[in-house]
């Protein structure tokens, strides 16, 4: 894209800053959102993405396990959570979880991703035992489990500090926290959508604590419900400030809200251009977060491939048995094979790199 175009769009100054590797402000982030030319915004994000990762596009061979959908929170944007006793409620015991891991012992999985609802009465020992037994069964696998929201919930239920929760889970085998439950940090939005849930500040506090203890985390943003673009930018800014402080964020994942089967009936699903612009602005704002993920489960595989040109460098994983997005009407596949992931990345013009949960390249024999 030539300089003339950015001048026409009134983005000459931002273009200059991005070229010079300088940080953009919250106001500049808002101007990028307001820009009608998604290709121009995308090309800026692509510049940064190429500078950071060249033509690499990462993916992980992973397994998702949702241990239970029973949840005390009742967030209005969620199609997954159920109250205890609901006919569609489920909870796995530790053996069930182990069986799911065992069922895939022949697959070269490097990461298991475990999240669930905020269950009202599962004892803390359940989570510790699950982690310990997975680690015993497959010591080579990294366990990325429990969002900051679940961590705070365990602490409350067990009557201990979040630091103690993290310490004990780490001792049991926890390697990393996923980025879920961040939604949009705005107190206005959380009051409307998820008043029972851990606050935005609370989420950031748990993430900070984890980082300080040497536990890396991801971070998400659920967008496209009732939030304003300003609230998205403020969310990104809060993460950028946390990252300046701790450096513990590995990957940022923007998640388009899927309205089907949720209580936000009048919301329309996000469109492709909005998804791509949000991806690009995330890359541009989060100059200190190494990776941006195009989560194909929510975006569709086709758009996720295109998103590799709009700031994303990670294609997520093979994801067997995803439930949360699909229960909200996500129309993507249930799983992708490694071969298919690599082909899609290559045909998009990028070089596939298999990674572990910390984004170390995985060497296969």
């Amino acid at each position, binding site marked *: *894209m030539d300089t003339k175009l950015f001048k026409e769009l009134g983005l000459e100054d931002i273009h200059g800053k991005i070229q010079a590797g300088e940080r953009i402000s919250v106001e500049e982030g808002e101007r990028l959102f307001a820009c009608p030319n998604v290709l121009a915004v*995308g090309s800026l994000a692509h510049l940064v993405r190429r500078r950071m990762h060249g033509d690499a596009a990462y993916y992980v061979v992973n397994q998702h396990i949702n241990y239970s959908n029973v949840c005390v929170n009742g967030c209005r944007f969620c199609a997954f959570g159920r109250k205890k006793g609901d006919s569609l409620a489920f909870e796995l015991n530790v053996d069930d979880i182990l069986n799911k891991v065992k069922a895939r012992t022949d697959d070269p999985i490097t990461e298991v991703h475990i999240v669930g609802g905020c269950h009202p009465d599962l004892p803390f020992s359940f989570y510790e035992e699950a982690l310990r037994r997975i680690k015993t069964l497959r010591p080579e696998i990294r366990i990325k489990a429990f969002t900051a929201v679940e961590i705070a919930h365990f602490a409350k239920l067990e009557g201990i500090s979040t630091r103690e929760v993290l310490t004990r889970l780490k001792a049991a085998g926890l390697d990393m926290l996923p980025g879920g439950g961040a939604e949009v940090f705005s107190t206005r939005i959380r009051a409307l959508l998820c008043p029972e849930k851990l606050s935005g500040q609370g989420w950031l506090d748990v993430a900070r604590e984890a980082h300080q203890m040497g536990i890396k985390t991801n971070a998400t943003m659920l967008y496209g419900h009732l939030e304003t673009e300003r609230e998205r930018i403020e969310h990104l800014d809060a993460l950028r400030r946390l990252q300046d402080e701790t450096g513990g964020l590995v990957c940022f994942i923007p998640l388009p809200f899927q309205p089907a089967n949720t209580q936000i009936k009048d919301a329309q699903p996000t469109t492709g251009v909005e998804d*791509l612009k949000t991806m690009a602005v995330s890359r541009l704002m989060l100059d200190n977060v190494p990776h941006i993920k195009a989560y194909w489960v929510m975006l569709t595989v*086709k*758009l996720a491939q*295109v998103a590799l040109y709009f700031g994303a460098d990670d294609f997520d994983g093979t994801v067997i048995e995803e439930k949360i997005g699909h229960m909200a009407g996500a129309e993507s596949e249930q799983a992708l094979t490694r071969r298919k992931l690599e082909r899609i990345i290559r045909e998009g*013009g990028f070089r596939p790199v298999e990674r572990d949960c910390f984004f170390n390249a995985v060497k296969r024999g």
Partner: protein
Amino acid sequence: METGRLLEKAALGERLSIDEAADIYGQADFFGLGQAAHSLRLRKHPDPVVTYVVDRNINYSNICVCGCRFCAFFRAPDQEGGYVLSREDLAGKIEETLGLGGTQILMQGGHHPTLPLSFYEEMLRFIKDRYPIHIHAFSPPEIVHFARLEGVDVGTVIDRLRAAGLDSIPGGGAEILVDSVRKAVSPNKCSASEWLGVMEEAHRQGMRTTATMMFGHEEEPCHRLEHLLALRELQDRTGGFTAFIPWAFQPGNTSIRRSPETAVSYLRLLAVSRLVLDNFDNVQASWVTMGPKVAQLALQFGANDFGSTMIEENVVAAAGVHFRLSVREIRRIIEAAGFKPRQRTMAYGPVEESDRDQS
């Protein structure tokens, strides 16, 4: 000329040679290609309008003697599951289309082994006698097939169908307009020159048609460009094509084993098509094969039309791909991309603008 200069030239609507087209198709970066195609699109249509048509695909029969390897829809004449639509079903589908604000039907079938030309004439008359609807029907391979079966020339077939009520001819069955590719994937279907011949004759008789390309099966990238050049050459002579519609082959349930084209390759081809077909007014995005999200982005890669609401679609669905969109959703997607949606006819004229369903 270096690739960047070629893109600048193409964006201004200057003609690309096949070598120049190959250069930008192979070398141009993703954003440069999109930007150039979008610039040309804006030169041709300065108003930020994206059109769409409310119509229905009606497949009057799936019985076909062609046996194309890429097709998941057809049934051989002796195979179970073959059908010819009854007049009653046909009428019901048209009434439903009109009820939904539809202006046209896209009617195609297989190469039926025995139905005479009079069957198709009567079908057209049956529709025209009853319904005020535009009939966009019978792709060139069907016309060639009718001519052979009837023992008359293509011009006579078109003339008779036109007299019976045919309004325009859809660009289907073009696949890739290169005979070596056609021999491999659709050996029993009309040749490239026959396909072009039908369109030329239709244009000569004053009928408008569209043109398609089905890519991503067994052709090479150079064949796609040859296809575009063949269309451009005919359009120079007749000006009868209203639009070009490329869509990606969907391999599900077919005899061709390969992976479908990805979104990025689709967008690149779409942009190159916009730039090469400098004498085509309209280029259509394919949400049916690419999904609404990628089709929306296609509006920045040279497409100025969002295609049809597809009240019914059977051929792509037979290959296992099911996307559905309402008129309201199509309008929302177009608006979210920064354009004004406008319902159009087959000839790309506006349907009365009463700011319909703004609710």
